[in-house]
C-alpha cells in the first residue's frame, strides 16, 4: 500500500483558507448599517426568490454570502436553534450572541475536520429595544473566526474596499433612506454599473415594531427610497 503524501498542517490550513476565500470573493457583497430605527441589511441579489437575507427570530436576522446551499443550510439550522430555544425558555431568551457562537463552532469544526471547508461568511444581527439597548452585529468567517462589529459591516467580494468606503462615509443617526443610499453607494464602489431596486435585496430589523421586527422592503418602496433627495 503506498503511503499517503505528507502535507504539513500549516500548508493544509493555508490551502483550505485560500480555497474558501476564493469562493467567497467570487460572490456579490452584502452590507449592514445601523440606522435610527434599527439595522439595515442590503445585498446585491438579482433573484427575488432565492434570499441572502432572512429572519431568524423576533430581533435577529441572518445574511450569508458564498455558496447558496451552504449558507442556506446554516440559515435553517439557525432558525431551528432559535425556535427550540424560544419554545423551551421564552422568546426574550433567544440571543444573537448564542447563535453567532453556534455558527462559529460549526464553521470552525467543518474547517478543521472536513476536506472541503464551507465557502461562506455569515452575519448575525440583533436589534436593540426602543429603550436604548445596543444593536449587535456578529460577522463569522469560513473558518469559524468571529468578530463583533459596530455601526456597519460588509462581507463578500471586495469587502475590504466596501468597508473602507463605509468607514469614511458612515454617520450616526441616519434615517432609512440615508442609510440605504449609503449602503447602495458602498456596494457600487467596486463596480462601474449603477445598482437599481431590481438588483437589490433589502430588509430591516425595525426596533419600533412589535414582536417580529424583521421586514423585507419591497421593490416599489425601494425605488422611492433610492430617489435622490428623499
Amino acid at each position: 500500500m503506498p503511503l499517503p503524501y505528507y502535507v504539513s498542517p500549516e500548508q493544509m490550513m493555508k490551502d483550505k483558507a485560500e480555497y474558501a476565500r476564493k469562493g467567497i470573493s467570487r460572490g456579490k457583497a452584502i452590507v449592514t448599517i445601523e440606522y435610527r430605527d434599527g439595522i439595515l441589511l442590503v445585498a446585491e441579489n438579482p433573484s427575488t426568490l432565492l434570499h441572502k437575507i432572512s429572519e431568524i427570530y423576533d430581533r435577529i436576522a441572518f445574511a450569508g454570502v458564498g455558496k447558496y446551499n451552504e449558507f442556506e443550510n446554516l440559515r435553517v439550522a439557525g432558525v431551528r436553534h432559535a425556535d427550540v430555544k424560544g419554545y423551551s425558555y421564552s422568546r426574550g431568551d433567544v440571543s444573537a450572541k448564542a447563535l453567532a457562537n453556534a455558527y462559529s463552532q460549526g464553521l470552525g469544526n467543518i474547517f478543521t475536520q472536513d476536506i472541503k471547508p464551507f465557502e461562506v461568511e455569515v452575519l448575525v444581527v440583533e436589534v436593540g429595544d426602543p429603550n436604548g439597548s445596543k444593536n449587535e452585529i456578529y460577522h463569522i468567517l469560513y473558518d469559524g473566526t468571529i468578530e463583533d462589529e459596530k455601526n456597519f459591516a460588509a462581507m463578500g467580494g471586495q469587502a475590504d474596499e466596501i468597508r473602507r468606503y463605509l468607514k469614511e462615509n458612515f454617520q450616526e443617526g441616519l434615517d432609512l433612506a440615508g442609510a440605504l443610499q449609503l449602503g447602495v453607494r458602498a456596494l457600487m464602489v467596486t463596480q462601474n454599473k449603477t445598482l437599481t431596486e431590481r438588483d437589490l435585496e433589502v430588509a430591516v430589523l425595525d426596533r419600533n415594531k412589535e414582536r417580529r421586527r424583521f421586514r423585507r422592503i419591497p421593490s416599489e418602496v425601494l425605488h422611492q427610497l433610492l430617489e435622490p433627495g428623499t
Partner: protein
Amino acid sequence: MEARWQAAFFDYATSSFSEVLRRSAPHLLPPPSTWTGQDPQGPPPVPHGTTVLAVRYRDGVVMAGDRQASEGYQVAHRRIEKIFKADDLSAVGIAGAAGPAMEMARLFQTELEHYEKVEGENLSLEGKANRLGQMIRVNLPMAMQGLVVVPVFAGFDEKAGVGRLFKYDVTGGRYEETDYFAQGSGGKDARDSLKKRFKRDLGKDEAVRVTVEALLDAADEDLGTGGPDLMRGIFPTVKTITRSGISDLPDDDVRRHCEAILNDRGRL
C-alpha cells in the same frame, strides 16, 4: 438502499417544528402513549377552559371566548385567555384541559412561524387546519385519560378570500363549519343562541353582537362559563380575523355590547 443525496428530498418534514423537537428535544413534547386502560380514579383535577366560538361574517371570522377556567365546581381562574393568535391570519380557541391546550396552542404558533421562516412562505389555511388535527391526534392517549383538548380553529383563507372555521374531535378529526361553531361546556347553549341569531354576511358590529350574545347565553345556562364581570371589569375576549390580519376588540367595545344586550333584556 437510499443514497445520501436523496435525504434532502425526504427532509421536508423538517419544515415542521414538532419534528425538530422530536429529533432534538423530545422531552418538550407530550409523553408517548403509555395508556393501558381507564384510570379507576378518573382524571386528575385540572382547570378546564369552557366556551369558545367562531362566527363567520362579511370580512372574515369573529372568535370569542369567556374568561373563566373551572376545576370541577370551582373557579380555577377568572382572567384566562382562550383565544390565541396562531399567526397573522388565524387563531385557535382552546377548550378542554387548560394546561395541555395552552401548550398545544403555543406549539402550534411556533409550528406555523417555523414553517414560514424555513420555507419562506405561509402554510395554506387548509394546511394549518390539518396540522392542528395531527397535533390533537398525538394528544389522544392523554385525552383517553381525561385530558381532552378540542380547539376551534378559524382564519382567513387568502386564496379563497373568505374566513373559514374548523372544529375537531378528540381523535383529531377535522370538520369544517360553514357559518358558526361553539365548543366547550357552554358550547351547546352558545350554538343554540347562534342558531336563532346568525345571518349570512353580517357586518362587523352585528357579528360581534351575535357572538357576545351567544357567550352571555352560555354563561346564563352553564356553570362553567363565566359571564361578563362588571364589578371586576372582566369581559370576554373577542378577536376579528380579516384579510388585513387579526385584531383584538377593545374591552370598552365588548363592555358596550354586553351592556346593550343586558339592557335590551331588561336586566341592567
